[in-house]
């Protein structure tokens, strides 16, 4: 829900509630004022009536009252003199032809030794008319206030909230690996300025951290590769020393091989961390079948030497948007895996469909859950020298390109499927 609709909803409800309560109050207040006014008028009428009643013989000639007022005079028994009483009653109105509310003042008076009960009745403003009137006013107020609010809010969201939406747009487009420093326009609204400042601080900090980390990984690689280069070169110098017995030469070779492995491991780990840092974002369209065919040429002789029968089933020739370095890494690792863990005289079958490719090869039965081999440094049974990063690299490349990879072993049949 948009912030604006939510605030509008609150405004709407509060306006309805406040104006409704206001309407009820207005009704009672107005009614009260009207009653008070009528009471005054009735009392004034009473004074006027008594004055005329006692002064003139024929009161009809001069009697002055408002239209619609009624006066009744009744003779009372001698000993009865009721108190003055003000009350509301309902009576038939001759003009409007319906029953309407009236205000009545009753009092008693003595004239010429007789007791009379006099009542003056005034037609009241009907409360339903009052309610209708007030409701109309309130409704009119509501509509005009709500419409004004909607318009004002819309303008506000356009103008006042504009920098906020701009900030969001900038954040949406921000990518830590490729974006330059983010710049926000100067803002006159304090809250947005504060928000932008804080976001900028955070982004700058993240960018700096990211670059530091990147630099650190690269430096770490440099720092590790150089001593490894020294170990390797020194062992190679030792190999050339004709005075060393063969046993010692073998030891030297083991040192050199270990340095090789460490270096390979280092390279793979750097690669994984670079992928974690999304440093491979340049995508291009790759014809995956062409790509596989090209890489296969490098493995041909290994396939021959291991006597592996190669089957290819290319049902489709999909174009994949991939980073070319990572595509190389993926296909190379897939083929290397399928050949390295193969048995002599085994088979390798590569199938490419519209939305997946499958690598099936013979191998040794797996003792571990094949899916667990996707974890870093998890090794199967056969490979003593493998780094344990091959499948982790494959999985990472697939993740980056939103592909799904699964690994299944049935007896000696290893099946690696990649869905894209």
């Amino acid at each position, binding site marked *: 829900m948009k912030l604006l609709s939510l605030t509008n909803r609150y405004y709407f409800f509060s306006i309805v509630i406040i104006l409704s309560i206001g309407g009820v109050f207005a009704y009672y207040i107005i009614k009260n004022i009207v009653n008070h006014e009528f009471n005054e008028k009735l009392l004034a009428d009473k004074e006027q009536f008594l004055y005329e009643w006692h002064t003139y013989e024929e009161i009809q000639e001069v009697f002055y009252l408002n239209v619609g007022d009624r006066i009744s005079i009744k003779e009372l028994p001698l000993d009865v003199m009721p108190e003055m009483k003000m009350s509301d009653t309902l009576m038939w109105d001759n003009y409007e032809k319906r029953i309407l509310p009236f205000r009545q003042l009753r009092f008693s008076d003595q004239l010429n030794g007789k007791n009379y009960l006099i009542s003056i009745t005034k037609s009241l403003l009907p409360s339903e008319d009052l309610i209708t009137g007030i409701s109309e006013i309130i409704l009119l107020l509501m509509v005009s206030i709500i419409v004004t609010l909607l318009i004002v809010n819309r303008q506000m969201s356009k103008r006042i909230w504009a920098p906020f939406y701009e900030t969001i747009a900038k954040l949406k487009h921000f990518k830590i690996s490729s974006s330059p420093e983010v710049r926000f326009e100067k803002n006159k609204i304090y809250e947005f300025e504060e928000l932008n400042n804080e976001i900028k601080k955070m982004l700058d900090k993240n960018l700096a951290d990211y670059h530091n980390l990147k630099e650190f990984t*690269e430096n770490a*690689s*440099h*720092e590790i*590769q*150089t001593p*490894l*280069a*020294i*170990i*390797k*070169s*020194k062992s*190679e*110098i030792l*190999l*050339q020393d004709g005075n060393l017995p*063969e046993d010692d*030469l*073998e030891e*030297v*070779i083991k040192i*050199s*091989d270990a*340095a*090789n*492995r460490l*270096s*390979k491991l280092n*390279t793979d780990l750097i690669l994984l961390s670079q992928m974690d840092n999304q440093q491979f974002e340049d995508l291009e369209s790759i014809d995956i079948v062409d790509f596989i065919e090209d890489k296969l040429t*490098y*493995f041909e*002789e*290994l396939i021959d*030497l291991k006597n592996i029968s190669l089957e290819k089933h290319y049902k489709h020739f999909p174009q994949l948007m991939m980073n070319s*370095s990572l595509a190389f890494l993926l296909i*190379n690792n897939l083929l*290397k895996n399928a050949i*390295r863990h193969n048995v002599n005289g085994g088979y390798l079958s590569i199938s490419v469909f519209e939305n997946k490719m499958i690598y099936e090869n013979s191998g040794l039965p797996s003792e571990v859950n094949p899916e667990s081999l996707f974890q870093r440094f998890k090794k199967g049974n056969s490979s*003593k*020298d*493998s780094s344990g990063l091959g499948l982790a690299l494959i999985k990472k490349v697939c993740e980056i390109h939103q592909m799904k990879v699964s690994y299944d072993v049935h007896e000696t049949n290893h099946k690696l499927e990649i869905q894209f």
Partner: protein
Amino acid sequence: MNILIIEDEPALAESMIKYLSQDGYHCEWVSTLNEAFEKIHLYTYDCLLVDITLPGGSGMEVVQRLKKNKSESGIIIISAKNSVDDRIEGLEIGADDYISKPFDLSELNARIKSVLRRRNFSGQNEIVFKEIAILPAERSVSINGQPLSLTKKEYDLLLYFISNQNRVISKSSIAEHLWGDYMDMADSYDFIYAHLKNLRKKIIGLGGGDYIQTVYGVGYKFTQF
């Protein structure tokens, strides 16, 4: 042949000097950028080995300076970063080759020889080892004048051996040279043996000598002795 080694790690430079000197190269070594500028200003070298990360700046600057002065020297960049960008940048600004740490000295030696051969347009382009003659430009080999037909891998192997003759070459170094990233070391040792067997058979078949010695558990040595 004069070689300038620009490398800030003394132990590594020392190994390089030791290995290359045995092939009759005259090696000089500097460890900073300024020393390198001074040397290339004063002398001419046949080949320079340039480490990229140096105290005082990037080795790329040396390459740029050399190219600006239209130097004919061969340049091999040595980098601790096995990064594609660095490789492309290095080759674009005019380096002849790029090798990443850690490398085999035998590989470095073979690369230097290859760069020197390519640089040395006017000179003798044939590599002769006793009765074996190699024309690298044509990738052809002959024994006693008879053409020897080799597969790509066998040819690469022979050239690698002759570039590093009389040296013990480890199997891993051969594997790295032949297959690089495409193969893991341990897998390829059997394949090296198969290629060697064929190569040896072919050379002997044309009346050549058996120059490949096996150093048990270590590797091979190509030698006439």
